[in-house]
């Protein structure tokens, strides 16, 4: 059932992919080696074991792969509207059968032409369960997915019946049901194409990626070593970034990268939580805050268990939280007032009327509901000091403002996830969600549909499911947005989750390097502009 998703961990720094960009001699030739031009090093938080967008759903890997490949569509960073990259057009009359035309002239770095067949073959390969590719789930809306991914037994087919090659540059995708945001989902890099050579034996190409992006590998690469990229002269896109050479360096500790920045070896770094009080003095005039907040941090409630079944209890818990103070625990956080992220088209502020501090009202609601019997169990990832601090802050508020008894349940993060997926959490869990593709739908479905990927509180509302189906089938985009907003309004009345905050990364950047920072895209160091 699960579709591949990017989940942002709430309120803490460590799990977020911390992107740090460095500039080893920006432009002016000092230390840039033999080449003229701009070269920079982008450092990332986690090591990547291999480079393959079809088999990678990690933020870090996708970040690097997005330089080596190119997406079919992209959300324009400044306007928030969808634009085509590899795709020439993505059209449908009924939101169910989609025709994708790709632009001519694109080539893989091994010389192969990028064709409609490249996409269809890659998607079939990825969707075939025995290949166990990470982005298998990206195709679960396509007709025939179940034949390749049966609940039990061997797959009945090796190709998706919903995919058809029409001609060299055109193919059609038939979905199981109408789904109007489909073109937006094509901005996910997990649906990029692999070369025919790679598909013959992907294991041989784990460390030798063959893409069609603005960059290609510069020399060899082994897992654990930095990834060096150089400009791909054959890149057919119009949106190539300014940098000529990019090196991705891996730092397992974000503070180490921060120190590398201060030493002048790196000139773009995200500020880790622990530096919240000092980054402004450490790097005066060199810090900025992301304009986009592409996610939401919230509390997941087990709404099928007493006393969480009572909406009044859920609202009381929400009204007792001082979100302003909570947000100050992490750099760049600000309080949430609705259920979606500010950086998606159609987002509205203040849809959550209970996302404010009103202790008197909270007490009244709780009294009406008959109080909170027993202990409130609060789950947190104990291996993450930031999350423990956050959990204690929440617990203190409920304990002191509503008189609740709190039981903290700290477990390693690796243990909480499976427990939650199995529906075994009998308490409140701190969570975060960041969209895979910027659409209201990508918040409403995963968080609130009865079949939602991260709806681990088991919230079920038949009407929400039905409304989602209707909005998905709406071909008129403006009307679809209004439909999604109506769903959010219904959810706000029930408060199945408690929105807490949105995160905007704070980052440091050296003079002369200006990373892309726009309201509808996360800060992107690959797309930096250079002062000279």
């Amino acid at each position, binding site marked *: 059932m699960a579709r591949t998703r990017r989940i942002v961990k709430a309120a803490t720094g460590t799990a977020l992919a911390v992107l740090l960009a460095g500039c080893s001699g920006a432009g002016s030739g000092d230390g840039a080696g033999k080449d003229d031009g701009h070269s920079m090093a982008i450092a990332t938080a986690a090591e990547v074991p291999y480079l393959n967008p079809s088999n990678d759903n990690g933020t870090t890997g996708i970040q690097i792969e997005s330089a080596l490949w190119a997406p079919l569509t992209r959300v324009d960073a400044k306007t928030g509207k969808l634009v085509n990259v590899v795709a020439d057009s993505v059209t449908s009359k009924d939101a169910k059968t989609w025709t994708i035309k790709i632009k001519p002239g694109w080539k893989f770095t091994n010389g192969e032409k990028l064709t409609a067949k490249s996409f269809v073959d890659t998607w079939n390969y990825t969707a075939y369960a025995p290949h166990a590719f990470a982005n298998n789930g990206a195709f679960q809306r396509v007709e025939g997915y179940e034949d390749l991914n049966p609940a039990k037994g061997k797959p009945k087919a090796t190709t998706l019946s919903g995919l058809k090659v029409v001609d060299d540059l055109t193919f059609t995708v038939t979905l199981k049901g109408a789904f109007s945001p489909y073109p937006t989902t094509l901005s996910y890099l997990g649906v990029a194409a692999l070369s025919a050579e790679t598909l013959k034996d992907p294991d041989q190409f784990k460390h030798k990626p063959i893409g069609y992006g603005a960059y290609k590998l510069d020399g060899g690469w082994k897992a654990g070593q930095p990834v060096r990229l150089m400009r791909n002269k054959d890149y057919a896109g119009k949106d190539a970034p300014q940098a000529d050479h990019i090196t991705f360096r891996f730092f397992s500790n974000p503070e180490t990268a921060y120190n590398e920045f201060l030493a002048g070896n790196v000139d773009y770094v995200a500020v880790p*939580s*622990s*530096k*919240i*009080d*000092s980054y402004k003095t450490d790097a005066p005039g060199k810090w900025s805050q992301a304009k986009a907040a592409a996610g939401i941090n919230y509390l997941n409630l087990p709404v099928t268990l007493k006393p969480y079944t009572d909406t009044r209890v859920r609202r009381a818990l929400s009204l007792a939280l*001082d979100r302003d*103070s*909570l947000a*100050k*625990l992490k750099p760049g956080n600000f309080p949430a007032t609705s259920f979606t992220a500010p950086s998606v088209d159609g987002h509205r502020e203040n849809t959550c009327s209970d996302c404010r501090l009103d202790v008197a009202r909270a007490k009244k609601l709780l009294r009406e509901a008959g109080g909170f019997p027993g202990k409130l169990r609060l789950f947190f*990832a*104990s*291996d993450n*000091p*930031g999350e*423990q*601090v956050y*959990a*204690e*802050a929440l*617990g*203190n*508020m409920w*304990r*002191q403002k509503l008189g609740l008894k*709190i039981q*903290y*349940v*700290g*477990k*390693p993060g690796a*243990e909480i996830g499976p427990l939650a997926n199995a529906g075994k959490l009998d308490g409140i869990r701190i969570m975060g969600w960041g969209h895979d593709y910027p659409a209201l739908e990508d918040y409403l479905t995963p968080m609130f549909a009865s079949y939602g990927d991260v709806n681990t509180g088991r919230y079920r509302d038949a009407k929400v499911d039905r409304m989602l189906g209707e909005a998905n089938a709406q071909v008129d985009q403006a009307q679809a947005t209004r439909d999604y907003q109506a769903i959010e309004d219904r959810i706000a009345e029930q408060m199945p989750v408690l929105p807490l905050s949105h995160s905007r990364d704070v980052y440091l950047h050296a003079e002369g390097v200006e990373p892309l920072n726009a309201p509808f895209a996360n800060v992107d160091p690959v797309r930096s502009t250079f002062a000279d």
Partner: protein
Amino acid sequence: MSDTALATAATAAELEPVGEDSPRGAAVLRELLRKPRFVLSALAILVIALMAAFPRLFTATDPTVCDLKLSKGAPSAAHWFGYDIQGCDYYANVIYGARPSVLVSVSVCVVGFAVACVLGMLAGYFPGFVDSLVSRTADVLFALPGLVAMIVILQAFSSRSVWTIAFVIVLLGWPAGMRLMRSTVLSVRTREYVLASRALGAGAQHILRVHILPNSVAPLLAMTTLTVGAAVGTEAALTFLGIGLQPPTISWGLQIAIAASYRDDVHLFLFPALLLTITVMAFMITGDTVRDALDPKLKR
């Protein structure tokens, strides 16, 4: 070697049993009380013990009254240690943090010392089967990845307390102390006074207690007093693995571990670390002076 000859000369004097009866005990105490170093460190232990037992003697403030708006507030006249990240009075929290930390570290020290001491003596004094059994068991325990072992063992406890944590630390920690004890026992067991005593028909128990123990315990003791601090560190590390003490428990280990991630606010780290250091110092100096006072060879 001339060492051997010299040692033989010393044998006769050391054949006398030492450290037995109360008159000597009183004398030792009187001697200790004359040393300002001992008095100070013993006083420090007393204060820390009082703090652990009766935190209310030191503060009237409730450590659980917190206001997030005051988060990380700096020390002031009214709040000596400032506020912690949750906006709770830090002085009260550091005082209340003494109990679990002191309980874990002292019990780890005492029990760990006893286990290492006894097993080390056995392994060192009885070569062959006993030594092999103890030493190879120690090898296996020592080679287990501690992290994994602690998680697996602590998972088995339905509720975790200071005692279960101390138990696991001792269970996995004794091999180091045992090796050290064994090494000194090995060198002492063939000393002439031991051989002489054995020749006179003394039993193994008597020899171990009277001759081996006092003459071989010093390095282990030195190592043990150092572990007072290490145990608090381990206690904190376990918390972050999700298998240690958890909030709302207050402990120095937790405070130091959290403060290590918020190093911009020095006071968060300074105060619990200071108290922990005083505790370690007190145990170390008390240990040293008591050993010196008890050591028959130092009598001049």
